[in-house]
């Protein structure tokens, strides 16, 4: 579909809040055309079929936070090619390409803001940057966001979207699973809530570390969430996977997530939840 391709090509250049030049977009699920103005007003959920269109990090911030409340924290930490990784393309070139495409140093955007006036620290993974893969920068920025939240006494929300750990940093990226876990412990010690929002797709090392040790785990409708990817599993079991396997609703049924929440209701859900979980001091 030409328009579908066009939409995908256009999306990364769209900055939230700027005028969107193209008038309409084809929904990748139901293939219906939707006015861009309606999409943006409706949190990028297809008004025809409810499909949750993938967001880049800036769109996610726009959808979640009160308008104008965002103050960015991330941006100074830059990736390096510590292993001098030999690939079909140099890692440094891959990075430069992804940086140019997304306008960020790596697959993460963090900052502070409010949701219906509730102050939060927010970290958002950017799937548009190298499939949201977690390398040293993602790990470091998530750790800093957690430490910022602990230091400033705000809840932390992490929005995940990741194909897993970043191969080009090998064991260094693997270690980010531990690093993020260490940093999140500071929130537990201060009794501050940490909520993860799992979006399509969240797999691999992210699923096996910070994404799933949240106090409350929320998933977006239809999101693919798992540790091993569907193809690897299929190779292991040599049979087709059941319909809906590893989707958000499947995980809810299997007890793995607390709720599947429509993107249009996430602000209200999170504000109420964080209000309820804000620690009241247990005397002595």
């Amino acid at each position: 579909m030409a328009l579908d391709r066009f939409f995908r090509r256009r999306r990364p250049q769209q900055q939230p809040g700027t005028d969107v030049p193209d008038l309409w977009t084809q929904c990748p699920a139901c293939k219906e055309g939707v006015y861009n103005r309606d999409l943006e007003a409706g949190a990028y959920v297809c008004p025809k079929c409810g499909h949750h269109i993938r967001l880049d990090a800036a769109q996610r911030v726009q959808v979640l936070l009160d308008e104008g409340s965002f103050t960015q924290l991330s941006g100074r930490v830059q990736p390096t090619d510590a292993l001098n990784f030999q690939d079909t393309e140099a890692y440094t070139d891959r990075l430069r390409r992804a940086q140019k495409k997304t306008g960020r140093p790596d697959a993460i955007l963090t900052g502070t803001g409010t949701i219906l006036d509730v102050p939060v620290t927010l970290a958002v993974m950017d799937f548009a940057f190298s499939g949201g893969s977690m390398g040293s920068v993602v790990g470091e920025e998530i750790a800093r966001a957690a430490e910022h939240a602990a230091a400033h006494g705000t809840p932390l929300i992490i929005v995940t979207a990741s194909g897993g750990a970043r191969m080009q940093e090998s064991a260094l990226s693997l270690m980010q699973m531990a690093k993020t876990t260490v940093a999140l412990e500071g929130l537990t010690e201060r009794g501050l809530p940490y909520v993860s929002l799992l979006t399509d797709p969240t797999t691999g090392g992210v699923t096996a570390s910070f994404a799933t040790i949240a106090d409350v785990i929320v998933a977006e409708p239809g999101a693919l969430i798992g540790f091993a990817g569907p193809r690897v599993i299929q190779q292991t079991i040599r049979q087709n996977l059941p319909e809906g396997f590893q989707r958000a609703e499947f995980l809810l049924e299997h007890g793995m997530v607390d709720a599947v929440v429509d993107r249009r209701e996430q602000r209200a859900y999170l504000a109420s939840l964080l209000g309820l979980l804000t620690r009241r001091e247990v005397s002595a």
Partner: protein
Amino acid sequence: MTAPIDTLKELEARVRDLEVTAQKTGQNLDAALNPLRAEVDRLRAAQPKAAPTRWERVQLARAQGRPTALDYVDRLCTEFTELHGDRRYGDDPALIGGPARWQGVPVMLLLQQKGRDTKSKIKRRFGSANPEGYRKAVRLMDLADKFGLPVVALVDTQGAYPGLEAEERGQGWAIAESIRRMLNLRVPVVNVVIGEGGSGGALAIGVGNRVLIQENAWYSVISPEGAASIIWKDASKAPLAAEALRLTAPDLLKLGIVEEVIPEPAGGAHQNADEAARAVGEAVTRHLRELAAQDAATLKTDRAARFRRLGAYTETP
């Protein structure tokens, strides 16, 4: 011109094929396999002893007859009492553990156990754990914490088991919880990668105060075959991927990911399990002795700091 090394590779490939067949069909082919394995061992011993390439090390880490976790326990521990089960769903033979005396010192063992013959390899899923394995590990870590037992974890897995049921029961959740539990322990934790250290499935019991690795073991975010499949769409390019991934013991020491490389006997640990075990035993005991001097709070904060700082990045002002 067929050099001995090629005969060896050919034979190794045949052994692997037969093992795959045995796994698929559930048949015990040891009668056919054992003579082949013996010949492989003989040829390996005869090889010239130049510093192995990264891919050669990966093959040594997978060598037929390489000591498994229980081979070290047999040689180094008395009174190993295996404790079973996650108290929720099942007992995983791929990740086992329990209290034991490590060269006389009471410890809690966590072991990724690949199996020693075809039958036990299949039963233990070649050391690839299900969520139950990691949940049992968490339970044993709770006991270690409660009773002040240092934890010794022997890592040897290509990764967590990528099965349908493992996903249904929360493989990612179980690994994450195991990482968190180990990071929070108030007792000393020493990890040794004794063969393969594959991805999150290895890290799940790999986040201790001291991470050691045997000379020919590997540790990486992805297996060489997995990386080759992604990069070149061709798993046979694994030797190239092994180079790229910097997954050997010397690489990891340079990156600050491990504290120490434990030497292996000439030709690899499988050439002399007793000698390999002596080196592992000595190294672990030495680190346990050093850590015994630290108090609970220091053990936890030092361990946290160790992992907090890992990673490579620059920072703009």
